[in-house]
């Protein structure tokens, strides 16, 4: 039983990370109807930036906040420079541009920081509080950070005028433009927020999977699975999906097929959800008018 609970908690911790990245994917999808294949690499790159700051003597939380801010700026810049020209282009064009972005970020990280694996510090104490044994402090911390991010995002969208404007821009760009919302900038802000959320996911996962340019490939796949499971247009669904996928991954890995096929589990989840219930658990069913 202890081992089982341990697996569940470890699953919840990684699930929190998948949830953050899935949330970032959902934000970009809601704003622009695009699926950002480079989300994982953006998070990876942000994590390297944080590592550089920590190496040069910054305190952890200082570097953390600086990275989140910097990622926000970079996210906005990427939207403005790269994505805006292909916003209305066919799917193939946008997918190719995203894959290009993925390759550029991946290889530039490899170029600057080399492909050797680096360890990344965890901000949380090494021993779990309250004498808990089946969960580590980092796992608890990662879950807490995810929930905090989710709460902030919820509050932002629910209670601020800017959040309302962003929702309006995503839902009905034409009408929003007519009432004076600068839709283009709202999309860019959405990208910035997504990049910042992704950066927190990267910094939370790096102590577990270690830092290397390819660290996010598997995480991204699970984040895709999580976002699809929750419904690609539902932020809350993405978080629930993240936790479900995280726990599922750990339990299936521990009791059914072993750890070597973890990515295949993600593949089966993705194809399964898409074929059986494309709208996910909480997503809206899209009806297209012909």
């Amino acid at each position: 039983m202890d081992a089982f609970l341990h697996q569940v908690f470890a699953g919840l911790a990684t699930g929190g990370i998948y949830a953050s990245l899935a949330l970032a994917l959902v934000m970009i999808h809601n704003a622009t109807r695009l699926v950002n294949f480079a989300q994982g690499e953006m998070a990876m790159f942000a994590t390297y930036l944080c590592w550089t700051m920590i190496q040069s003597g910054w305190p952890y939380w200082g570097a953390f906040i600086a990275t989140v801010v910097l990622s926000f700026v970079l996210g906005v810049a990427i939207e403005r420079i790269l994505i805006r020209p292909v916003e209305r282009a066919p799917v193939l064009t946008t997918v190719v541009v995203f894959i290009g972005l993925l390759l550029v970020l991946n290889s530039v990280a490899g170029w600057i920081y080399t492909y050797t694996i680096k360890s990344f510090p965890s901000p949380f104490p090494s021993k779990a509080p309250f004498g808990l044994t089946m969960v580590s402090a980092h796992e608890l911390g990662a879950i807490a950070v995810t929930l905090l991010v989710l709460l902030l995002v919820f509050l932002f969208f629910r209670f601020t005028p800017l959040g309302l404007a962003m929702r309006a821009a995503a839902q009905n760009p034409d009408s929003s433009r007519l009432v004076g919302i600068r839709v283009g900038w709202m999309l860019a802000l959405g990208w910035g927020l997504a990049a910042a959320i992704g950066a927190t996911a990267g910094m939370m996962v790096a102590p577990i999977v270690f830092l290397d340019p390819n660290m996010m490939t598997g995480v991204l796949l699970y984040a895709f699975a999580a976002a699809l499971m929750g419904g690609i247009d539902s932020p809350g669904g993405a978080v629930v999906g993240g936790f479900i996928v995280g726990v599922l991954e750990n339990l299936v890995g521990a009791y059914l097929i072993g750890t070597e096929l973890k990515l295949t589990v993600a593949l089966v989840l993705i194809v399964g959800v898409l074929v059986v219930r494309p709208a996910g658990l909480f997503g809206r069913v899209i009806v297209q008018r012909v």
Partner: protein
Amino acid sequence: MEAVTSVEVAPLAPAQASGGVRGWSRGWIAAAIVLVLVACVLPFVASNYRLFQFTMVLIYAIALLGLNIVTGYNGQVSLGHGAFYAIGAYATAILMDKFGVPYWLCIPAAGAICLLAGFLFGLPALRLEGVYLALATFALGVALPQLLKYKHLEDWTGGVQGIILTKPDPPIASLFGLQLNPDRWLFLFTLAVTVLMFLVGWNLLRGRVGRALIAIRDQPIAAATMGIDTAMYKSLAFGVSAMFTGVAGALGAIAIAFVAPDSFTIFLSISLVVGMVVGGLASITGAFWGAIFIQFVPNLADQISKAAPWALYGAAMIVFMYVMPTGIAGALRLAWLRIKRRRGRGSPAA
């Protein structure tokens, strides 16, 4: 003059770029035949290493034509075509290594296996549109190396170690008094398969089937109204595309004489996408330009840094999408039309 202006409408976006199937005049066919004849001489003038590279160019060209059938012509975005390349390669390696099947028989066998695999993957893919299909195929490409390493398949796949093959010997020692060695023979063999595959592809794409595929890509609803069996054509496109890529994989396994899971990562699939974008979407000749790009450019860029080829790939993908969405083949076609128009203007009497 009028005919020229009517085809000169600049493509708005790659998905709207018309296929380069029509307009294959006699001149082009003659040029293709001359090129093949020149290629036949190549083995006897180039070094073995260069020849190996040229063999790989032909192999990539077949794979790119396959990817182009499903993505360029039919508009189903596949980011996991490396998986079919791998299935073809592994099918060949297992047949040769475990069953002693002769190498030339492995090619059609691998093609048939991949046709089936692609058709089967194409069935659930029917329900996925646009970006979701890209997602599912991306997942396939990422998950594949793990599947190939799986311990219960190890007896067949050789696990992490992979399978080592031997290069086939030429059936005759010399041809018209010219010495043959395994590399030379392999090039000629690959050339023959390439010519065959491109003839098949050209025949498939220039007629009714090709038009149906393009119609489904551009106007799926209108295509269905016109009586095109959309589901059938889409899964068929996936199957045929997988067959082409699988044949390329089979040739690749024979040429490299080695298969291992780590040669079939997601980056192989991405290279194929890069080759398709650079060469030209929905273009048959584009497959060769793309193949030359993904074979030689990494070699050159590698000298700068280990990461440089991929940085270059990424930059090339983005730049081509913005500046030259129809790839090298499309740019050449436009240039050719422009020259023709200028000539037409120069001599109004003609």
